[in-house]
């Protein structure tokens, strides 16, 4: 199941504990190790 969090904010009293958080987590969020290494390769590498 995909989880999407959009501009999430939670305050306790005056304190903003979670501020405008956004991201998406894909189903399973796991991949074979080779794909994972490729995906992880820094994008600004020469």
């Amino acid at each position, binding site marked *: 199941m995909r989880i*999407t969090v959009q501009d999430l904010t939670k305050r306790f009293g005056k304190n903003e504990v979670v501020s405008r958080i956004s991201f998406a*987590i894909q189903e399973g969020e796991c991949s074979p190790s080779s794909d994972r290494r490729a995906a992880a390769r820094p994008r600004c590498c020469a």
Partner: protein
Amino acid sequence: MFTLLGPSGCGKTTLLRLIAGFYVPDEGEVRFDDRRVNEVPPHERGIGMVFQNYALWPHMTVFDNIAYGLKLQKIASATIAERVGSVLEKVKLGSLGDRYPGQLSGGQQQRVALARALVLNPKILLLDEPLSNLDAKIRISVRAEIRKLQKELGITTVYVTHDQEEALTLSDRIAVFNQGRVLQIGPPRELYERPQSRFVADFIGINNLIDGTVQAADPARKTLTVTTAAGELAALWDERLHPGDTCVLCVRPENAAINAPVDGQNRIKGRIAFAAYLGNSLRYDVELEHGQIFKADIRDPWHHEEFPVGTAVSVSFPASSTVAIAGDR
């Protein structure tokens, strides 16, 4: 596995509880697939949750702890027995169903908590610092089991931890948190090798941080020249940095060498201030001429004769492992 990583009090557990439904957000929304779940109570979200303190019933056996949620759903006894047996096998506790939590080790109790979450066939698994109460060796073995199980079952999993090594080992992607905000999201290697802020560079692993000003940018050679208190240093080119910009250079101790006869690298002079033997490496604190401490690792201490404190040395490191971050990030 997606990990929320940050120091204590940064908001990561609050975010997990917002996803679980224990808190209702003041602004924004949480969606599971296309369904908005802001007002859906936790027990209707199809989640399984594991807590740091296990939260097992001490007066119930392992079997009854795991079966509890299924009994509430009024599932037939034979089906409950089958599902609990199956999940106990998955977490390698097949023979311990009759024990009470107090008769189990911490690692076994956490596996019962994991089994209790999994037996409900959740669509999403939420893990809140599940290994923090375990000692170092058990932690490593349980985290390997969690990772294996998550891959086998393919459940979308959100993992909360303050332990950066745990996050690097377990995660497909990590969101680094500080003061209620996400600073960077990426695979472990990207966060370690290409931090985008001083906080991320400093929080994940050990980094030498050297402040400076960009002197020149050379996109053709993929390098920046940076003026620092330690002299002129070369770093990886970054399109966001231009001459005159302030920046911080990040150098990992494992990328630095002491008294290495290598040309074409950054080189700084200093004196040995301290040596820490770490078993698989030896970490020197080198006091640079301008007073900053620079950490450099010797990766094979077996074949290295330790420099006495006060020895004058030169530290070298390549531009290709020197990352520049904009000074205001």
